[in-house]
């Protein structure tokens, strides 16, 4: 949790820094790369939008562009040198990783981005990427300043953003989706078969499921309503009391639980400031 909060804070700080600069130079350059034979896609960028589109192919095709805004030509050149997009394949995973002096760790599987850049940086780099993938590919997507979209995928997913929305359209599979500042909006072509979660902090969580949905939901919003057009049965909260230092202690966190259909995988939907909507696909 500390890491998530740190990333959120640092991400917001970076966005503020970038927005506050008066950049006079812009450079756009295309991105093209193809992976083949990988079963998993791992994307980790700091700034820019990420769009995943499933198709009938067997390869992973990356297109897009790098957009640099800089104070002058010197900083533009520095940006090109500093901020690079590493593309690697390892153990069946295609990796797309925005690398630069703002990273201070070599553990790319970590969520810790480790900003440590100085205040003298006078450029901003966005990597706006569109990745065409096989439908069954597993997704591990990270973006700090930018939105994430997925369309038509059917594999497991683990997606998180910080400052931006996360949108899943016509997807299948199970997994976790979260953002901090933005909505989480997902529509399922095929309902999740395993436990899944959909979260935001400042934004709505809006998920559309197929009518044959059978699941148990654990729901929580602090400032917002929770709605569904499915027939549902309310359940008691999970949790329980315990003995601690000779005292009886019970804690309930105020979640609401409902069952849809005959029940099934547990689906957590959670936000702080926003509504939660469980929709039935028409």
């Amino acid at each position, binding site marked *: 949790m500390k890491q998530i909060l740190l990333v959120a804070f640092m991400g917001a700080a970076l966005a503020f820094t970038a927005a506050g600069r008066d950049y006079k130079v812009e450079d756009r350059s295309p991105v093209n790369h193809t992976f083949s034979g990988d079963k998993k896609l791992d994307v980790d960028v700091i700034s820019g939008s990420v769009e995943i589109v499933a198709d009938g192919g067997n390869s992973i095709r990356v297109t897009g562009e790098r957009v640099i805004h800089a104070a002058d030509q010197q900083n533009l050149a520095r940006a090109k040198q500093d901020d690079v997009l590493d593309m690697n394949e390892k153990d069946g995973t295609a990796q797309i990783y925005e690398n630069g002096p703002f990273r201070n760790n070599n553990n790319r599987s970590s969520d810790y981005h480790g900003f440590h850049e100085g205040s003298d940086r006078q450029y901003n780099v966005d990597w706006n990427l569109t990745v065409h993938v096989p439908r069954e590919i597993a997704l591990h997507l990270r973006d700090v300043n930018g939105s994430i979209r997925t369309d038509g995928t059917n594999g497991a997913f683990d997606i998180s953003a910080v400052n931006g929305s996360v949108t899943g359209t016509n997807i299948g599979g199970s997994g976790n989706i979260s953002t901090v500042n933005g909505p989480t909006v997902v529509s399922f072509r095929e309902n999740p078969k395993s436990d899944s979660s959909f979260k935001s902090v400042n934004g709505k969580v809006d998920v559309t499921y197929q009518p044959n949905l059978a699941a148990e939901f654990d*729901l929580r*919003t*602090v*400032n*917002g*309503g*929770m*709605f*569904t*057009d499915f027939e*549902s*049965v*309310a*359940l*008691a*909260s999970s949790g*329980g*009391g*315990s*003995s601690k230092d*000779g*005292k*009886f*202690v*019970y*804690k*309930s*966190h*105020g*979640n*609401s*639980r*409902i069952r849809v259909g005959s029940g099934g995988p547990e689906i957590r939907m959670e936000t*702080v400031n926003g*509504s*939660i*909507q*469980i*929709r039935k696909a028409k």
Partner: protein
Amino acid sequence: MQISNIALITFLCAAGAAAQDRVTVPISNPSQPVTLKVSTLNGSIKVTAGTGRDVIVSTGEGDVSRRRERNPRDGAPPGMARIGGGRFGVDIEEDHNVVTVNSGPPGGDGTLVIETPANTNLQLRTTNGSMIEVTGITGDHEIENTNGSIHLNNVSGSVVAHTQNGAVIVTLDRITGTKPMSFTSMNGKIDVTMPAATKARLRLKSDNGAIYSDFDVRLEADASKPLVEDNRGTNGKYRISIDKSVTGTINGGGPEYTFQTMNGNILIHKK
């Protein structure tokens, strides 16, 4: 604390729109009185005397109507139904017969419904609860609401009840001990029923209301002296304040009971 007691925690599952969490809190020493401390920010509190030896805390769904009042745009979208009303979280702890219940924020605008043994000292506090309601409990009771009323029905022992905005309505079956009592509001009536034999010295004050009683109240001569604050040596202010309270005794006098409101009548009934 017996580990087996933990098994007493039960969660009752109700089909339908409103599920309710029901927690049974085992008491360390059931032969001794319980002290129940409840604090909530936006919820009402209802306490009744149970027949068992445990304290049972039920947390229902939130008060949907109040949420809608606060956020009228938060209505259900077309074709969709609201799920619950924003159930609130609650922390419960029992330590040597002292049961502490805290709820919200966040959330927390429902009603805490608590059953407790009849001999329980109550310390209940809410800020924006519509009501604190207690029925049939014997003990020393300290009840505080900020924006809502206080209803104590057929309680015994002693009472200190205060609200800023709401009525204070109390029916005392028995008064035990000689503790002073207080029934006060800022905006609301004070309506207290006491046993006919109650011996007390009453301090009564309503700034914008009348005072009524069927007790034979023997008013005392106004012996109060103006309170003088002489700060002319420091900030040049010289202030005189006069206490407008009326004092009197019933049944020969006894501990002091204060009845005070700014806007509302004071009614003291003989039971």
